[in-house]
């Protein structure tokens, strides 16, 4: 059974169409990378699918009540907001009715390597540590589906990889993750499926090796890339801009 299905999801901002008839279905066990240039509609697609912004068309999550949706999908917004100096454990436990000793909370803290930080004030941590705390909060919601908007932005390389490996492990457990990314190398390496957005439209959708071709990257991103198969898997390096 699909964890999320959108049908012709369309978002207008004034006269401009920021998301144009996006239809997408997410199955259990998928790790989906949502890529596209700035303004292509990645965040818009995720937020419209959740029903956080008004949209035309259908989305299974947007039709749910807020409470039912909270059990069906977790959402990690791009803006890393922590308004008050609360403890890390409390922040993560917000996903579990403030039960700081709930097994889901402890598991999420452990998974993000935060057990030693549990009693620290979240606002006193570094940007990268805060990002891990917020990922832990989303994991603690313990939902079959996780939607994350640019979760690796601002993280050092080790934590970028760590974050993607955590998401891939979730997919390995039969959950699904949809993650918007700017780093095409991370997308190529860690995702089981790539969805490409350009000017609000889904222009490609499939396994990384089929979707991430030099022609498509030149067309959508206006870049020339080096793509190689290595013993470590697929490697993708942006090289230069292409004049259009």
């Amino acid at each position, binding site marked *: 059974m699909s964890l999320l299905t959108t049908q012709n999801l369309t978002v207008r901002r004034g006269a401009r169409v920021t998301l144009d008839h996006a239809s997408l279905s997410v199955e259990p066990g998928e790790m989906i990378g949502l890529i596209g240039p700035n303004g292509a509609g990645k965040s818009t697609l995720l*937020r419209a699918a*959740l029903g*956080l912004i008004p949209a035309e068309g259908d989305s299974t999550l947007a039709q749910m009540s*807020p*409470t039912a*949706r*909270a*059990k069906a*999908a*977790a*959402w*990690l*917004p791009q*803006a890393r*907001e*922590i*308004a*008050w*100096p*609360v*403890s890390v454990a*409390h*922040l993560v436990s*917000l*996903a579990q009715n*403030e039960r700081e000793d709930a097994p889901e909370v402890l598991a999420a803290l452990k998974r993000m390597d935060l057990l030693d930080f549990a009693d620290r*004030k979240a606002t006193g941590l570094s940007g990268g540590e805060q990002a891990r705390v*917020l990922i832990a*909060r989303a994991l603690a*919601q313990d939902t079959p589906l996780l939607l994350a908007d640019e979760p690796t932005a601002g993280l050092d390389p080790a934590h970028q990889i760590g974050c993607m490996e955590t998401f891939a492990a979730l997919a390995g457990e039969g959950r699904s993750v949809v993650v918007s990314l700017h780093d095409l190398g991370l997308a190529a390496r860690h995702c089981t499926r790539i969805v490409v957005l350009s000017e609000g439209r889904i222009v490609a959708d499939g396994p990384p090796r089929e979707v991430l071709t030099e022609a498509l990257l030149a067309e959508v991103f206006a870049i020339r890339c080096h793509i190689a198969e290595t013993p470590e898997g697929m490697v993708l390096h942006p090289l230069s801009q292409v004049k259009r």
Partner: protein
Amino acid sequence: MTYPRLLVLLTLALVALFIASLLVGVADMPISDSLSALFGGGEGPLPMVMREIRLPRALLGVMVGVSLGLSGAALQGYLRNPLAEPSVIGISASAALGAVIALQSGFAALFALALPLAALVGAAICVLLILLLAGSGGTLSLILAGIAVSALSSALTALVLNLSPNPFAANEIIFWMMGSLADRSFLHVWMALPIMAVGWGLLALTGRGIDRLTLGEEAAASMGVNLKHLRLLLVGGVAASVGAATAVAGAVGFVGLVVPHILRPLVGARPARLLLASALGGAILVLTADVAVRLILPGRDLKLGVLMALVGAPVFFHLIWRMRGRS
């Protein structure tokens, strides 16, 4: 300090100040006589002073303080801004406008509760305007709507004063706007209490939502918070409690701003826990100030709102100073 221990300490302080408020006044009486008059009753001036003047004054102090402290904590949590206080959404200014119109037109003199009722009407109109203006937008639209309504109310209040043909009426208006608990009766308590209680109930329900709002609106919504419901609870709760508080006590500032600020570090900065703590803290602050106005200048009718601003502003200076030191 643990949360339950903090609540116990605040409650003990509140009880002590409540008793102090009953014992301090123009009529200088021995403590034992005052208490026996309060509980024993009987004939004569002493039981009358205790039961009809000091008891309602102390009760109103608690009620007004709870309303302002609780509203301040809820608004700061909802807006995720430590500078928010009940006046940002314009309720106190609109309630004051209602009262000022009642004083100016002579409506206030018609019956005992005419003035507070007019203030409540002002607060109610303000809520409708704010909800209409802010629509379903985010917290920013709520603040902007509040500022707009507040500015309009202040301008209309100034207009009423400006056009006032009678200097005595203008004087009365200015004194009322300074805020006071003097010369109130049980009529005021019974009028304000049910409205405030509804407000407190609505605000108590915001705890879960404002705790989750620590992570921002989208994250809170994704954790099951219904932002539209939350906003209605908040605006309705602040309007009922602060509207009723302004109606019976006039404009008393700084309580809703300073109390949550001081107590926040003691509750681990958790917005939901700050609600009850600030309600108790607000009552403590208002009772303290109301005892102080009677001790500092007895017989001169120093206004509660004036003292609060005189004490509140330096506390605020101190907070800014400390914040500067940290950053």
